[in-house]
């Protein structure tokens, strides 16, 4: 940590003036391209200069959490997973609850980066980088749980089709194995998507780097990117295709996660509503997490001009919509239980709402169905404190949703003699808290070392990025491009370009 922190100090001590040539600069500033450079500056400097004090405090706390997780996982491996609260009849305790919780959070990142891209929602450019990073880190946090929940973690590779001395193969008919493939494919594709988006921005950092090793390392990861249009052409196509591939993938991942439950014959799990209901819940919780993170990030890093209140409001609307879908699914489940006429199914649901775990059920209902309705009010969904609080409440609610689904369906099975009551142990709590530590550790490292906003994409949606912006003189906005995200610094001076353009075409 100490050594890597030193890397960027040189270029950042004095705010870098555009590299190399002071002479041409005044001229260029007048020409109004200032705002492109401003974006570069606003975003890059956080990856270059020393982190603010708040970063160190947060990092220390998060790292302690991550170390707690590592320590407790060692404890779990050493003693066996009995140190968690799982036992008959509840064999899937918190580890599976946490797994579904973390995978769900990841989904918003892909939704923002892929689905909103396909729908040409330009506002995504301000948040997609951070949201995709969140996806990757959330999936890492998710993968921990099933990995250790198998008990013999050293045999986890048995889930992969690797030829072995036992001449055995994984059981491909099991939804649990589908899950291995779904979540790991999701992780790999998300990482590729994220990296492809990063290449042009890493090249920007490379070209700004003044330190020898920093430049070499960034040159390695930016692959010699030069912003060539021949490259952009293939790049944009690949990005579009990745968005098109990630969209069905993200919908499939949580569907497959829901198969873990739905394909079984346990009352309360065996329902066809699970895949869409899980996907909506995943988007719901993920967007809440993005709001939580973005509210803090834009505050600390002064990115309020890039991640605007309008962006946050749009996310809050998505939270409202998906929250209502989830709430509707809760009610539908009840209806279906009653309508099925199956006694066990009906009991499972009555037991959920009024049995020993009623407290969890009503926390879930309140947090997921009731409180997000506050976002109907425009004033509330544009209020930073309100959205911050609500986004946390939503994630509490979504954790309880998985708790309710997993625990209440298992704790009373078909035979009353084997009924039980699940209670979490300190190891359950410690590992869960620790997983947040790991998540925030990774996220803080991301904020520190990687451009946290997709600079090339933000520049690309600015009105000045449209070549026809310069055609008709005046301060014309590009038609059909929506509002300018960042006001052009000297829009009137665009007139000056007209002659250049006329010469060129003549």
């Amino acid at each position, binding site marked *: 940590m100490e050594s890597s922190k030193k890397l960027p100090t040189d270029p950042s001590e004095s705010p870098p003036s555009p590299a190399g040539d002071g002479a041409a600069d005044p001229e260029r500033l007048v020409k109004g391209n200032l705002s*492109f450079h401003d974006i570069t500056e606003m975003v890059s400097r956080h990856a270059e200069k020393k982190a603010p004090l708040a970063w160190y405090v947060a990092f220390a706390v998060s790292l302690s959490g991550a170390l707690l997780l590592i320590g407790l996982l060692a404890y779990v491996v050493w003693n066996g997973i009995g140190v968690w609260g799982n036992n008959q009849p509840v064999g899937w305790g918190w580890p599976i609850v946490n797994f579904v919780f973390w995978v769900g959070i990841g989904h918003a990142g892909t939704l923002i980066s892929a689905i909103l891209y396909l729908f040409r929602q330009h506002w995504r450019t301000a948040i997609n980088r951070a949201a995709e990073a969140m996806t990757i880190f959330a999936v890492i946090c998710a993968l921990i749980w099933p990995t250790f929940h198998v008990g013999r973690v050293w045999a986890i590779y048995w889930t992969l089709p690797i030829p072995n001395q036992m001449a055995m193969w994984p059981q*491909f008919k099991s939804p649990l194995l589908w899950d291995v493939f779904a979540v790991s494919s999701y992780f790999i*594709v998300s990482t590729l998507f994220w990296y492809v988006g990063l290449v042009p921005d890493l*090249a920007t950092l490379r070209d700004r780097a003044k330190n020898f090793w920093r430049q070499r390392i960034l040159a390695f990861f930016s692959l010699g990117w030069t912003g060539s*249009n021949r490259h952009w052409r*293939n790049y944009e196509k690949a990005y579009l295709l990745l968005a098109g591939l990630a969209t069905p993938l993200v919908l*499939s991942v949580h569907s497959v996660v829901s198969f873990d439950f739905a394909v079984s014959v346990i009352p309360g799990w065996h329902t066809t509503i699970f895949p869409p209901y899980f996907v909506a819940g995943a988007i719901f919780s993920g967007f809440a997490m993005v709001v939580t993170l973005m509210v803090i990030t834009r505050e600390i890093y002064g990115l309020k001009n890039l991640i605007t209140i309008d962006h946050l409001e749009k996310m809050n609307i998505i939270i409202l919509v998906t929250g209502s879908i989830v709430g509707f699914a809760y009610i539908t489940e009840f209806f279906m239980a009653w309508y099925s006429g199956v006694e066990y199914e009906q009991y499972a649901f009555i037991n959920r709402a009024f049995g020993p775990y009623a407290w969890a059920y009503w926390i879930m209902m309140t947090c997921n169905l009731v409180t997000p309705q506050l976002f109907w009010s425009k004033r509330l969904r544009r209020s930073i404190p309100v959205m911050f609080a609500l986004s946390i409440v939503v994630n509490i609610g979504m954790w309880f949703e998985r708790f309710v689904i997993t625990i209440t369906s298992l704790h009373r099975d078909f035979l009353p003699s084997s009924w039980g009551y699940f209670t979490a142990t300190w190891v359950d709590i410690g590992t869960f808290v620790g997983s947040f530590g790991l998540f925030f550790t990774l996220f803080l490292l991301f904020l520190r070392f990687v451009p946290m906003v997709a600079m090339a994409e933000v520049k690309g949606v600015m009105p000045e990025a*449209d070549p026809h912006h*310069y055609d008709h003189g005046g301060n014309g906005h590009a038609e059909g491009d929506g509002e300018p995200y960042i006001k052009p610094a000297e829009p009137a001076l665009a007139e000056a370009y007209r002659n250049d353009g006329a010469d060129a075409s003549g």
Partner: protein
Amino acid sequence: MSTLIQDLKAQAGIFESDADQVHGLLAEFPDPGALLHAAEAVREEGYRHFDTHSPFPIHGMDEAMGLGNASAVGVLTFFGGITGCVVAYLLQWWTAAVDYPLNISGKPFFAVEPSVPIMFELTILFAAFGAVAGMFALNGLPRPYNPLFYSDRFKGATDDRFFLHIAASDDEFDVEDSAAMLQRLGAHHLELVKDDGTVDA
């Protein structure tokens, strides 16, 4: 043959320097609009080995440069997807029905239905590999050495500057004539980039 390879590399933006180590002319334009017009004009003059460099993709530049649709990436993605689907099918069929058949309640050793999720996932995964690896391959990346990096101004291509580069390997290339043309098109700064590391403004 060698010209064919040269042209293929030129498609990916990799141009060879001439005998005098001249790599090409690097012209800087004030904004995306000027760059677009310049690219159009340069193409109309008959140049083929040229490229534009900008911090973000410029809408309409592909047409201006006469590059057409980037369909090769789509083809590679498609074949990636097909490969993934076939691999997943064969893997599940061969392991379950051929290599280690396991009789579970007399059910068939292999069925398509439970194989669908993994076929789907691997289709996506391999298609994504095809898209990313294909895109990098078609772009000739990673490319650690590029003579354009000798230019200090060129660092701005990833920040807020707009460049047009005419390669010395182009048949039409002539230092004086090309430079004069670029100046006429509104380039406000010209550089001659050489492969031996010198840059003449």
